[in-house]
């Protein structure tokens, strides 16, 4: 059983994301790229499959800042192989379509029964990587997965998906299959720093250069901007004590707390 995990570097939304007013593009200098959270869950799900079935786990990302560390971390967590796809291009908030084509080409050379990746990234303006890749490769695709249970005997997998509101649905698919992971069955494991350093020194990360893939974008991102502030909240100001006191008064007026 060969499992491939595709990890994408995205700007950390917990930090400031600035737009350059002149160009209408993201200020590259202020971007802190981190592995997309659901991709971390995709890796965890792959490692769980490895532990259960002895599968091989190959983790792939591109040469954006932090991509190498993401791969060392994946190796430290237990991934079998790590591939760094060299593109030599900076981060763009609209490259998923191109990435799908690059990975489709790459997967011609890598055995894959299951391809796992995050279900929906915060920059998927032109669609999700997993679904676009599945369309490229002509493979079936299941999204918002919270559990993937492959069966080597029948060469199929049972996939549980999260519909929201406490409802889940379960699908069965023949392999190979591309899965968009929402959340892994258990939280992503922790990789100790020393093991990440060891993975770095082991030189187990392989770089692969891909030829530029002809890609004709069908849509044009005309401008990026900060959300236009609407009416918004009534802001309560003062010391924490004053604000807490004022808030409790408001809650009392609304009969949410007693007098």
């Amino acid at each position, binding site marked *: 059983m060969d499992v491939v995990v595709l990890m994408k570097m995205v700007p950390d939304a917990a930090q400031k994301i600035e737009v350059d007013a002149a160009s209408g593009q993201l200020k590259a200098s202020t971007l802190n790229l981190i592995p997309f959270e659901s991709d971390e869950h995709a890796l965890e799900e792959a490692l769980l499959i490895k532990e259960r079935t002895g599968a091989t786990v190959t983790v792939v990302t591109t040469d954006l800042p932090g991509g190498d560390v993401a791969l060392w971390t994946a190796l430290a967590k237990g991934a079998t192989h790590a591939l760094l796809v060299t593109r030599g291009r900076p981060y763009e908030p609209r490259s998923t379509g191109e990435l799908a084509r690059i990975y489709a080409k790459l997967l011609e050379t890598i055995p894959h029964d299951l391809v796992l990746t995050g279900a929906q990234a*915060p920059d998927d*303006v032109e669609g999700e990587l997993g679904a676009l890749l599945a*369309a490229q490769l002509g493979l079936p695709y299941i999204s*918002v997965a919270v559990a993937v249970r492959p069966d080597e005997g029948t060469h199929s997998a049972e996939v549980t998906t999260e519909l929201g509101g*406490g409802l889940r649905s379960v699908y069965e698919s023949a392999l190979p299959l591309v899965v968009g992971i929402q959340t892994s069955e258990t939280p992503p494991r922790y990789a100790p720093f020393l093991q990440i350093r060891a993975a770095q020194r082991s030189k187990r990360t392989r770089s692969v250069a891909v030829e530029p893939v002809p890609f004709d974008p*069908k849509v044009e991102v005309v401008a990026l901007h900060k959300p236009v502030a609407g009416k918004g909240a*009534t802001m309560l100001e003062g010391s924490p004590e004053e604000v*807490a006191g004022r808030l409790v008064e408001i809650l009392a007026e609304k009969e949410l707390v007693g007098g």
Partner: protein
Amino acid sequence: MADVYVLADLERGRPTDLTFELLTAGRALASDLHVPLKAVLLTNEAGLIAPSLGFADGVVAMSHSSLEHRNLEAWSRALLKILDEKPPKVLLIGISNGLLGLPSLVAGARGLPLISLCRSVTAHGEEIVGDPVLFGGKIEAEVHAKGGPVVVAVRPGSYSAEPARVQRTVPVENVEPPEALETRRVHFKRYADLEQTDVDITHCDVLISIGRGIQSQENIRIAEELSGLFRNAAVSSSRPLVDQGWLPRTRQVGRSGMTVKPRLYLALGISGAPEHIEGMKSSETIVAVNTDPKAPVFEYAHYGVVADILTFMPRLAEQLRKRKPVVA
């Protein structure tokens, strides 16, 4: 003349709110383009559902047993046949968890322009313009698509569902299912409900909802203490905390979790990603506390406090202890 299509999102055979929201969006777009609005219905028995889509000028339907549940492979093969036979100008698909990925599968298979994560869609002349919301609501974009058919994936909660809840008999064009449905590789097996052994947050009057700002699992007890000062209250959370295993999935508010409408929703250290907002925006009173004055959550809250929740929560608890809990 090409139409505006809206794909009906169905859950257990019933159109979801999102279906009606998109019909509202589709109507405005169809008016601008001076073309008819059609609902696309993929199901096992289209005749039963079509009249509930009466806000549209017509329904394009395909019936097949494999289309009963939102099986992405079956639905994409069905949609592709409809797009090939009756290409529209625009196809709107809602981003529900059940349909996530479908716009990409369809657009990817035919090389069609796709604009995803949209909060609005308009026509500028012949050009279709989408306004996606990115990076947890921190950035918005303006994206133009030429040619077509253009596929637009629209976020839930972007349009009002109410105008589109029209029940009437509408003309139905039936499209024969493709043979490809018989050779599909993905099969729906069953629904599974999340075990409800925990408190049901959809029935609470007050939710003390925590996000990344809580910083550590140990700090959750501070929120629990705060919750104890209200009647019929519980601690809920945004997705990252549940994904970390700090709280059970039954406590998650948002698209993948629960949709809640408590009398008071106290959003503590939650930035307000669109997926979270979807699940709580109908709460009666929303109070947000966040260190970032530009956090998107303040756009949806009635009252806002810029503060570190670890400093603020004990102060609030102190003030609440002077009062009696009254929410019953």
